[in-house]
């Protein structure tokens, strides 16, 4: 039987506000436990929530970023359940009337095609605290610093049909929230988290299969692995005549398996109802337009500009716009060097490689966009060859200065003086009569040998194009 996979993602993006969504506590990461939990976050008797305007602004920004309508009237609801890291005994979230309605985002497929992924909704809600399961004399510890941190929950349509698409979508949203500066995208600290709803069905079947919800998968790599493993698990179950149960499952990266979370003692019944402590949020056109005016160029628009203005391929433009900082960096290198293609090759090639190796973010690059652009200019005007440029790049990386200074100091300037190159060629031809004979008898491949000899003699500085041309002339005799 052929199987079809259906995947929908729920992404929780922690919003980069200063204070919590309904209280004046800080949301800074890493504080001592429970030092950032005030009367509201602790749900003391009598306290009331007051909504943070910045959280609303950020949600609206996201709506504009996915071309979704922003609701003029949205409502906060209580999702009721008991859990020790949920101090109120309910989570303030949105149910019937979310702040952002239907939108969409395009992902690039492996075959170069584009797929449009629907976004059902995005809504504001508060985060829970943390349960620390290390043993405290047989007890569990609760830290409520995170309780009340603003989250934007972004719910996709079940539009993805394999793990790769899910990762591509997740990366797209990850890039977008960072472009919009509404989320720092830090997966390790949990500011960007993903749950995946996964089901399989026989190819061609209309109705969806029973889904499992994979919780809190905190890296792109794990999302792909978790989904693939879960898909196989479900197919195995069905092929062996069993049925998939709807449940929440955890991915265990160490054992490479997904497993059922401790079965709930009763079926969840969240008893959503409008939070009587909060009034409907009304968002005016003026409010939305003021936010629209502050929007940066978004990934999709930037990608199109890179393609048309810089003549990049779809793929290169996609890669270079996958992170805002990367796209800004490339944009500057391309503009200042006026060599868009070369700039793309260097940014995606040597620079990315070096950053990866050093485990650095583009923002922390030891080579500034200006320095890289200056170096590329020297390649373009033949001051240095591409090969020598690698040494120059390394020197800039090591902090030895700018390209021009390094070229000067190390004498790396390309030899373009015909006379000097001819002198070297003449000497090499005289010393290698046998090879000259081979060339003349038609074995033109031997040319490479001569080029190598000249480059060696010039210590790499001879202009390769010139060397080629002069060698051919002289070897023909």
């Amino acid at each position: 039987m052929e199987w079809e996979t259906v995947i929908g993602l729920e992404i929780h993006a922690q919003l980069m506000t200063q204070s919590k969504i309904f209280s004046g506590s800080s949301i800074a990461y890493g504080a001592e436990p429970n030092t950032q939990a005030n009367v509201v976050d602790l749900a003391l008797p009598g306290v009331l929530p007051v909504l943070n305007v910045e959280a609303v602004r950020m949600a609206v920004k996201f709506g504009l970023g996915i071309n979704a309508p922003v609701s003029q009237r949205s409502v906060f609801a209580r999702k009721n359940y008991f859990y020790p890291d949920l101090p109120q005994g309910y989570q303030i979230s949105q149910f019937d009337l979310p702040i952002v309605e239907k939108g969409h985002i395009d992902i690039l497929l492996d075959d170069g095609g584009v797929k449009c992924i629907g976004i059902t909704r995005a809504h504001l809600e508060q985060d829970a605290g943390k349960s620390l399961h290390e043993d405290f004399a047989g007890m569990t510890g609760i830290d409520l610093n995170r309780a009340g941190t603003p989250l934007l929950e972004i719910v996709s349509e079940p539009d993805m049909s394999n793990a790769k698409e899910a990762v591509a979508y997740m990366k797209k949203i990850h890039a977008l929230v960072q472009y919009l500066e509404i989320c720092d995208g830090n997966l390790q600290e949990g500011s960007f988290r993903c749950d995946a709803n996964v089901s399989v069905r026989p190819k061609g079947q209309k109705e969806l299969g029973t889904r499992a919800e994979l919780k809190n998968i905190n890296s792109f790599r794990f999302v792909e692995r978790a989904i693939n493993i879960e898909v196989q698990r479900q197919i195995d179950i069905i092929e062996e005549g069993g049925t998939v149960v709807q449940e929440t499952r955890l991915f265990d990266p160490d054992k490479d398996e997904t497993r059922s979370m401790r079965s709930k003692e009763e079926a969840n019944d969240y008893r959503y109802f409008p939070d009587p402590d909060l009034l409907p949020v009304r968002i005016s056109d003026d409010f939305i337009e003021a936010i629209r005016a502050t929007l940066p160029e978004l990934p999709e628009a930037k990608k199109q500009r890179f393609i048309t203005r810089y003549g990049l391929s779809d793929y290169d433009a996609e890669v270079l716009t996958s992170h805002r900082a990367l796209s800004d960096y490339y944009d500057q290198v391309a503009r200042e060097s006026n060599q868009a293609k070369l700039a793309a090759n260097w940014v995606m090639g040597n620079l990315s490689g070096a950053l990866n190796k050093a485990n650095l973010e583009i923002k922390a690059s030891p080579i500034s966009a200006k320095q890289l652009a200056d170096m590329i200019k020297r390649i373009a005007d033949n001051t240095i060859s591409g090969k020598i440029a690698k040494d120059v790049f390394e020197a800039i990386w090591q902090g030895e200065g700018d390209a021009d200074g390094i070229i000067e100091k190390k004498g790396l300037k390309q030899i373009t003086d015909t006379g000097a190159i001819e002198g070297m060629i003449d000497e090499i031809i005289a010393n290698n009569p046998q090879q000259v004979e081979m060339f003349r008898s038609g074995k033109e491949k031997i040319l490479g040998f001569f080029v190598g000899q000249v480059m060696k003699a010039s210590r790499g500085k001879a202009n390769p194009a010139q060397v080629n041309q002069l060698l051919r002339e002289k070897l023909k005799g």
Partner: protein
Amino acid sequence: MHTKSLSELAADLKSGAYSSVELTQYFLDRINRYNTALNAFITVTDESALSRAKAADEQIAAGSAGALTGIPLAYKDIFCTDGVRTSAGSKMLDNFIAPYNATVVEKLNQAGMPMLGKTNMDEFAMGSSNENSYYGVVKNPWDLARIPGGSSGGSAATVAARLSPVATGTDTGGSIRQPAAMTGITGIKPTYGRVSRFGMIAYASSLDQGGVFGTSAEDCALVLTAMSGFDEKDSTSAEHAVPDFSASLKDSLAGLKIGLPKEYFEEGLDAQVEKSIQEAIEAYRKMGAEIIEISLPNTPLAIPAYYVVAPAECSSNLSRLDGVRYGYRCENAKDLTDHYMRSRGEAFGVEVKRRIMVGTYALSAGYYDAYYLKAQQIRRLISEDFQKAFETVDVIMGPVAPNTAFKIGEKSDDPVGMYLSDIYTISVNLAGLPAMSLPVASVNNLPVGLQIIGNYFDEAKMLNIAHQYQQVSDHHQQIPTAFDVTRGGE
């Protein structure tokens, strides 16, 4: 001192007839003497009362006193008071020392009013008789075998017995008006949003509203002015200017249009209570008011709608009481579920558990539309009834309760019967309107309250109307004889 109005007390304090410390001590002495019989206080804060009184005296001496500086009061034990136990009448919060002040408490502290203590109440404000308190039943000062009304029964009994000149209360379905009526004092529940709910332990958030008990409309006006106003900590508080509610007390009532809803005078209303209400209305006619019969056709649906909406909200509001961060915790829980179930099961009383379960059921999958949503729709119909009535009348009058205070224990086995006695008060909360009760008669030595219901933010007019009645009547000056013994030398 216990027979004087707030403005008389303020004048005496200013003239130096006695100090705030003396005045405060006087009421503490009365509490000391009479509280055992009434059980109106859960906590008496004599030390802090006297130290605040001392500070008030300094303010008075410095000439910077306001209208309420130095006059003591009592708070319903539902208002959080920093450093003082705030129990909400529940075993659950018996050990809860509030770490912050409710906005109302902040405001009245600002006004210079020393707190005498925290008054008894139905657990989490759920009740109409004050029989649902972990701290025991409160007695009605007019007849110690009877209930004082609820849920703010402790505050009402306190003011009725003159153990405090004024006291705060909260009203979710009648919890200020009904005990005021039962104990023969004046109580006002302002428009929803007028008084901040921050720090007032929530029963049903969309219905709860803080207010005040006094012996007269004049006293209530003074305190209500001080406790009202927009609060940025309460999203549901109203950004609506607060007038000086005392300023218009003397306005003439000539031409006032009073609506009498015919549904408030139908079957179920005690004949003698009805007669008392009719007499009071007659007095208003004599003052120049026009009496118009109106209809609030959805009145019979108010009780069913209320007893879905209020429990639904309370079932969620009370979820935070889980024994994790504060409050009661059961012993030796065998796991987390056991911890939750026993902490809550052992600490909540019968009625609280009942309402939590009603609300849980009304919101649960498959029942939400039939109960919760339906009730919210009916709520709109009820609210529209009132708006229609206010197109033709200025205020609405009627009884507060169908009967005078009943005997302790009389209705405790009949929750539905108890709920039905809220018939005249509950619609007001569903609509969010202001309403008050003032004493207008005594039937078999038990007080009868007249209810005045106003349109949104019409508290000034209602207080004016009540005050005018109190100029021609002395019902509000009646004190239960057992509590009218003055201290030697006064």
